[in-house]
């Protein structure tokens, strides 16, 4: 548990990350994801409870734990006046890498920045900086990687590019804990997803399992004027179906179970998604 004055940011969180998987910590802003990440690096100390990272108990052994972890922060904190290679070299030293030069070359190759090694970071594009940030967290080739909102605020194109980099790490066997509030990111990258809200894990499983357990097979979206939507909603709820807002529309979740016109003919039927689960469980519908 972690409190900040009267605010409890992480509350009775119980989570194990099995070796070699990518676990997506999915939750709305303010769910406690970043605080959880900071607790794992010893930058926040839990008020109650136990945290163990690869056999090292925190906060006492936090330094040993950090030696085995790579961390990619949510906000870019590269040294912008310093060259690309120096940014990597400094972190190779901080992580006690023996052969700093080899680690720098590895990082440059990973970030595909070999041609820019002597350029200061502020001359790089947003996508390059993000790749460098990832490479910086991997200079010591850690068995565990913490990714805090790895693609927040990036263009779709750069996001896809970064996803393939992360996916390559997962394939290589690096254990990854990734916090995100992008459903698509969790769907694409995570072997398992833990849904987090109000400092707790409210559900966990493989994305497909979560969908079939909480949302069923199919969702029907209805676009109509507000009066009509209220009517459709009342009908569906009368049959015990779950209805959630979906922007200007409503979504009838589990519509495959509907009978007697609970799903109007104008509805668009689609496969149930992790987004349906997310909205249903976190209540982040902001009506």
């Amino acid at each position, binding site marked *: 548990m972690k409190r900040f004055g009267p605010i409890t940011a992480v509350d009775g*969180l119980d989570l194990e990350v099995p070796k070699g998987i990518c676990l997506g910590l999915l939750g709305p802003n303010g769910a406690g994801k970043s605080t959880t990440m900071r607790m794992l690096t010893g930058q926040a100390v839990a008020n109650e409870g136990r*945290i163990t990272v690869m056999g090292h108990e925190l906060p006492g052994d936090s330094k*040993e734990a950090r030696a085995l972890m790579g961390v990619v*922060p949510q906000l870019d904190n590269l040294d912008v006046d310093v060259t690309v290679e120096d940014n990597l070299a400094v*972190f190779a030293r901080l992580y006690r890498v023996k052969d700093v030069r080899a680690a720098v070359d590895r990082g440059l190759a990973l970030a595909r920045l070999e041609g820019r090694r002597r350029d200061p970071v502020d001359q790089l594009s947003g996508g390059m900086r993000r790749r460098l940030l990832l490479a910086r967290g991997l200079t010591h080739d850690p068995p*565990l990687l913490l990714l805090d909102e790895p693609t927040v605020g990036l263009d779709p194109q750069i996001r896809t590019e970064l996803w393939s980099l992360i996916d390559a790490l997962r394939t290589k066997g690096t254990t990854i*804990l990734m916090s995100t509030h992008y459903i698509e990111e969790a769907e694409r990258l995570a072997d398992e997803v833990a849904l987090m809200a109000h400092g707790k894990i409210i559900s966990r499983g493989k994305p497909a399992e979560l969908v079939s357990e909480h949302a069923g097979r199919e969702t029907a979206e209805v676009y109509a004027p507000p009066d009509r939507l209220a009517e459709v909603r009342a009908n569906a709820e009368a049959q015990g179906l779950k209805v959630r807002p979906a922007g200007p529309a409503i979504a009838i979740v589990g519509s495959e179970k509907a009978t007697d016109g609970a799903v109007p003919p104008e509805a668009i039927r689609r496969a149930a998604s992790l987004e349906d689960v997310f909205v249903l469980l976190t209540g982040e519908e902001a009506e």
Partner: protein
Amino acid sequence: MKDEASRAPRAPHMRRLEPAAIGGVMSREVANFRTFWKATTFSSVLEPVIYLLAFGLGLGATLVDRVDGLDYVEYVGTGMVATAVIFSSALPAMFGTFVKERFQRTYDAILAAPVDVEELVTAEMLWIGLRSGFYGCFPLLVSMLFGLDPAPGMLVVPFFCFFTALGFAAFGIAVAASVAKIDQFNYVTTLFITPLFLVAGTFFPIDQLPKGVQIASLLNPLHHLVELVRDACFGFESTDLLRVAFLVVFAVSLWRLAVNRMEKRLID
């Protein structure tokens, strides 16, 4: 949260104040310094020249002839070492720490690696101490152009500067870790730094001042540095050992204060 991999690799046990961690943090400072050393060195060389021209020649040629048996240029030139030290330690520590903590989030990145706050603060202090030990010598070198005679004792001046700068670097870090906004540095510079460097015996002797000020100046590390530098140039005295001891105590106690303030600031 746990990772239940029973055969997971274990990291070797790590101690406090590891040279590798301290060296790593200092290497970051060196990499950054390489991008702005020209501007810093420019002002470190030119500043004493301007002061010596203004005070030494201006005041020395018109109002003041000799002070404490020294030419006024020599008096100010040797005293300026302390000014150079406080301005190359306390101020960079204050602004640098605040900017790295708040705006660049550098410390977030460093502390996610196996580096503790204590190592971080120690490394920052050491780097500033080394820099000030170097830049503190410029006023002496400039004074030689104005007629100061070289003396063997001057070789220890960089060490005096280093120890004093450690304390002021720690002071700056502790201040940066305590203020909520960067504007609040104005209170610190006006209330502490300006009086400390003006009433250190750099431009005029302390022993002409009221008794209360004289006693208070015994607590001013810069005053002790000024006296040590002058004695290094013109002959040591037995009280100098006490002055060195004072500077060491100043550095060690401010070091602990800075570590404590930074732990409070950086670890939630």
